[in-house]
């Protein structure tokens, strides 16, 4: 009973926040509504037992992507009313996209229910009592540790490659020499003089 109530609460909030994201006049409000939608989607994920995806949604989307959006929206001088003016013109395209996505969801669900390609065998379900964070951790950091480390090496090679192919030493720059600065003593730079009255300063 409580799950049902929670589901309808989260689901209603996602849909409402989504609609408000699209219709809000102020773009900053749009992003804030988007964050609310992400949070509620995370709640839905917790309800179906996918707590890892829920955390991912909060950490990655709310924590990083939404903040990035907010920065972009606040820092760039975009005329949103002008952007909005084309809505009527682009509406048929949007509707088409929605129809395609809807059809794909229906097909995917139907195919899953029909069990045509025996997905259950392929997906190798884990025992129910193992939380899925633990299950993913076991797969990535224990079962496929070797591949994971090798993937790290691939990224290292990509980094070395990018530096090799683009880095060049610039001539004519005058960079800060920290050790020279630290080594400098007061005696080298400061001179105490007793200046007699009536004579010019000797520099």
């Amino acid at each position: 009973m409580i799950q049902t109530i929670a589901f309808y609460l989260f689901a209603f909030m996602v849909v409402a926040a989504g609609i408000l994201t699209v219709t809000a006049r102020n773009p900053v409000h749009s992003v804030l509504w988007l964050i609310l939608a992400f949070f509620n989607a995370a709640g839905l994920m917790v309800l179906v037992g996918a707590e890892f995806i829920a955390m991912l949604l909060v950490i990655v989307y709310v924590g990083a992507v939404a903040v990035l959006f907010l920065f972009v929206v606040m820092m760039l001088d975009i005329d949103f009313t002008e952007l909005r003016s084309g809505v009527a013109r682009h509406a048929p395209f949007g509707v088409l996209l929605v129809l395609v996505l809807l059809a794909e969801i229906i097909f995917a669900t139907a195919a899953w229910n029909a069990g045509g390609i025996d997905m259950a065998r392929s997906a190798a379900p884990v025992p129910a009592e193992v939380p899925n964070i633990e299950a993913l951790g076991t797969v990535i950091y224990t079962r496929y540790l070797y591949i994971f480390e090798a993937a790290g090496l691939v990224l290292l090679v990509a980094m070395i490659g990018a530096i090799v192919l683009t880095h060049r030493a610039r001539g004519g720059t005058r960079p800060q020499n920290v050790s020279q600065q630290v080594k400098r003593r007061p005696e080298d730079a400061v001179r105490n003089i007793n200046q007699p009255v009536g004579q010019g300063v000797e520099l």
Partner: protein
Amino acid sequence: MSLVQSLALTLPELILTVGAVTLLMVVAFVGDQATKAVSWAAVALLAVASLALLGPAGHGGAAFDGLYRADSFAAFAKLLIYIAAGTTLIVAPDFFARNGNVRGEYPVLILLSAVGMGMMVSAGDLLTLYVGLELQSLAAYVLASFMRRDTRSAEAGLKYFVLGALASGILLYGISLLYGFTGTTAFEGVAAGFADGLSMGEMFGLVFVMAGLAFKISAVPFHMWTPDVYEGAPTPVTAFFASAPKVAAMALMTRVAVEGMGGATDAWRQIVIFAALASTILGGVAAIGQTNIKRLLAYSSINNVGFVLFGLAAGTQEGVAAVMTYLAVYVAMTVGSFICVLQMRDTDGQPVETIASLSGLSRTRPGLAAALAIFMFSLAGIPPLLGFWAKFLVFDALVAVGLWPLAMIGIATSVIGAFYYLKIVKTMYFDDPAPAYAPMESKVEGGLIAISALFVSPLGYLAIPALGAASMAAARALF
């Protein structure tokens, strides 16, 4: 199997990885003047990794729950890869010093590429296969455009990258199909899935995986990138491309075909036979009109890959042993030829790549001409050189399984190939001398040419018992 035991089996890769990262730090802090020392340190690391193959890493069995195989097949291929990579490391610093492109990252990238190749030949799982292949390829793309101010080198890198990414996509699509239809990425699991007949999806997966791998070994019809990349890349890098990654990809293809798809031999044999025939014919015919020695050697490598594929087409233990022997001889011939090409430079030290400049080499540089002639005769498969023995083994394996019509066609195509190899010998020995090359600067390069020439010369037949036994042991590990 505990983590420590698994790590012990991957010792060669561990040594190379830790070494490469350490050398990277040295390069980053000392700068490019350390390049020569770093190169020799990298060669030493490859030697140590080869020694590590004597331990459990050479025959310890499966590690990481079957992701990695440490068997004699992998050990044989790794030894070849390390030797080829080490040789191209030794000859590189002088070459880059001559055109002012000395960069300390070269040895590091070669080492990391060697790690990737080790993963490829030891793969027991489609995931290991793919990550290893990407590690090797990514380093190779960078190496191809290593002389970034040279437009040909940059073009080679870009071409290699775009086409390589396409091939990776094809391969990955095949892998995903195999995973979807067999429910596992492990080679044994795929083989078990194939055991009850080949479904349509599995068939598509098999074809895509084979096509992706055929690109990596540059078998026709996936060879288009090879001449351009080989011509544009710096010569030591081309020597590397033509030897180590070819061995790795060929060994990988053999392992996937035999271990992963052993139940569907008839299905992949058609693909392999087509690629072999097309490679030998096109590699022979297209090389005839070439005027650039590096392009010609690129077609020669396509041609040779065709012959190696004939061995795989046999699909038997003898066939796989022939593949391994052929690869060993091929590495010696190819690396030797490319070190000879490295000696082709005018009196200003600038590299010359035209075949015409070889004219009359026998009178200006008789030693170099003799060595190059030995390599060409051997690549053409003319007895009594070792290249003949390798071809003989391949066709012997084909005849043993009753594919003698294929063997006949193969022998006929090797005659086409012989034409252009012999044309080079003719240019060197019977044409009027062209301006002489600059004298050889490095004794090490001379020594490497001499060693590889001796190995493929009739003296190399002394190595046949050992080579044959090692190849047979390697092949036995797969069956």
